């Protein structure tokens, strides 16, 4: 278990896991530097700055520069972790991510902080429910969406070990630590968290624990749901998706737009290999005003809502 800070009721903020893991890596590897766009506190990097002020580059509120400077630092032999709010990092600087990072294929780590709808009432400008859709198209860029503090630590360690560009989507939405029989993280490999043959629920990020709770509720009714944690979105574990299609029904659950993200990726695979009944849970697009909890409830992204969608989907199985 990582040393993440526990919030209410044993919930954790994965940003703590990110920053503590990064500090641990930075102790051992002097090439590691951080690059921020006035995003020190929101990235939980205050302690990093205190320990290594000379290893933090704060470019100010300038996302194009934060990404490009990361690319330049990599050219100069550094291993930069560029950390900023995912909504601005990925949208404002998309061309820099495409050309300077992915197409040039440089050793830069992009940390999309406070992704998804974590900014709740601040609205669609601050939500980042499109990031996976527009990053998923870029060659060379590994995309990881960790589900809890332990997986966040694994993702950050894996990102540092990869000699190439990586994007890690880190949420500030409190999540519980997921109980795992086997703790094994591998980039590009889906994690089977619960086996079952009635349908497969494929989720990632902060939706994984909700999917597990939904599966437990379904089991009480005699429905055995497989739960697959698809934390790596690129490269995609197509074999796990094709295997999931053998259940005859796939439900995807993500804290992202239903267009172009995990659900879109899964749909692309099963359409070509084994079209089965499928439903995508997530957000339809720009969202109305509401708190995080209200928005999740409103769009059915709760254990009850996911279980309900699963029952409806099973009824559509051929």
């Amino acid at each position, binding site marked *: 278990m990582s040393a993440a800070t526990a919030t209410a009721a044993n919930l954790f903020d994965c940003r703590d896991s990110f920053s503590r893991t990064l500090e641990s890596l930075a102790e051992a590897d002097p090439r590691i*530097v951080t690059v921020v766009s006035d995003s020190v506190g929101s990235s939980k990097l205050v302690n990093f700055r205190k320990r290594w002020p000379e290893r933090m580059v704060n470019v100010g509120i300038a996302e194009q*520069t934060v990404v490009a*400077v990361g*690319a330049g*630092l990599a050219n100069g032999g550094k291993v930069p972790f560029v950390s900023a709010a995912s909504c601005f990092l990925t949208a404002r600087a998309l061309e820099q991510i495409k050309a*300077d990072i992915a197409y040039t*294929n440089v050793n830069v780590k992009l940390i999309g902080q406070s992704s998804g709808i974590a900014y709740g009432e601040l609205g669609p400008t601050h939500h980042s429910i499109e990031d996976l859709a527009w990053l998923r198209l870029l060659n060379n860029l590994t995309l990881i969406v960790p589900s809890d503090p332990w997986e966040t630590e694994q993702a950050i360690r894996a990102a540092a070990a990869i000699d190439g560009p990586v994007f890690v989507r880190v949420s500030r939405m409190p999540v519980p630590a997921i109980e795992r029989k086997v703790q094994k993280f591998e980039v590009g490999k889906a994690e089977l968290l619960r086996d079952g043959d009635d349908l497969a629920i494929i989720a990632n990020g902060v939706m994984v624990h909700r999917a597990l709770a939904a599966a437990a509720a379904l089991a009480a009714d005699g429905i055995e749901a497989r739960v697959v944690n698809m934390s790596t979105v690129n490269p995609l574990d197509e074999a796990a998706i094709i295997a999931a299609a053998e259940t005859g029904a796939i439900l995807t659950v993500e804290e992202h737009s239903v267009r172009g993200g995990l659900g879109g990726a899964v749909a692309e695979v099963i359409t070509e290999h084994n079209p089965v009944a499928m439903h995508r849970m997530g957000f339809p697009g720009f969202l109305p005003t509401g708190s995080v909890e209200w928005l999740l409830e409103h769009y059915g992204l709760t254990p009850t809502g996911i279980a309900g969608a699963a029952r409806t989907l099973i009824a559509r199985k051929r």
Partner: protein
Amino acid sequence: MSSLASAPLRNDPLETIRAKALWIRRRSFQMVYEAQLGHPGGDFSAADILATLYWGVLRFDPSQPNDPGRDRFVMSKGHCTGAFYSALAGAGYFPEELLSTYMQPLSKLNGHPNRNYLPGVETNTGPLGHGLPVSIGIAIAGQMDSAPFRTFVLTGDGELQEGSNWEAALNAGHRKLENLTLIIDRNRLQQGAGTEETASLDPLDDKWRAFGWHVEMVDGHDHQALYDVLSASPAGRGKPLCVIANTIKGKGVSFMHDNVSWHHGVPNKDQFEQAMRELV
């Protein structure tokens, strides 16, 4: 530390620079003629700058393109690959024969440079306003390590209409990146019209000074002036250097001279032959 940084400069590189600038113009125009694609006007405005850099200023070993101690050159005006690829081939990064594949199917010589295809390319450019911000990152890495390498970046002038340059300019000034040199190919023409009638840049020198840069204005076709300003040691300047190189688009060929239609115009046989007669 690499041996590159301590390599002595040639005593009088100006003869070589002159010859190579002419060669870049002739070779790049042949590439554009054969491909019937390219940006020859900007190739010609930048030819003297590139020749001065590669044959007078930059410290590099083409057999070790990733040597940590190399001077970096970033071609931000990535559309002017005729001149850039000619310079790289002439400098020994790859065989000159490769230039005849320019923009052909599966060629390593894409219309815009790709680091993964060719040695000597530091970062992939093409979209404008990318080279300076990346160069600042390189210069910061050098500053962190107190490394002696220098970083040079060449932008167009129309390119400065991209806001990313000004975010970056603010940072370079703030960080006093004296190891960074920006060269602006100030030919005063962008693809469809003059810069000043499109979105005016003047007074350009004042803008860079206001962002904390040291500014030098030179004739961008005067090899001696370019050599003097680019080869001077940056130590102690305490500011990044902006060299505004006043140039002429299409410089060297009479019918292309300061003519906006040669931004991405390509020559027919008669035009090509006339240009070759003039470029001697």
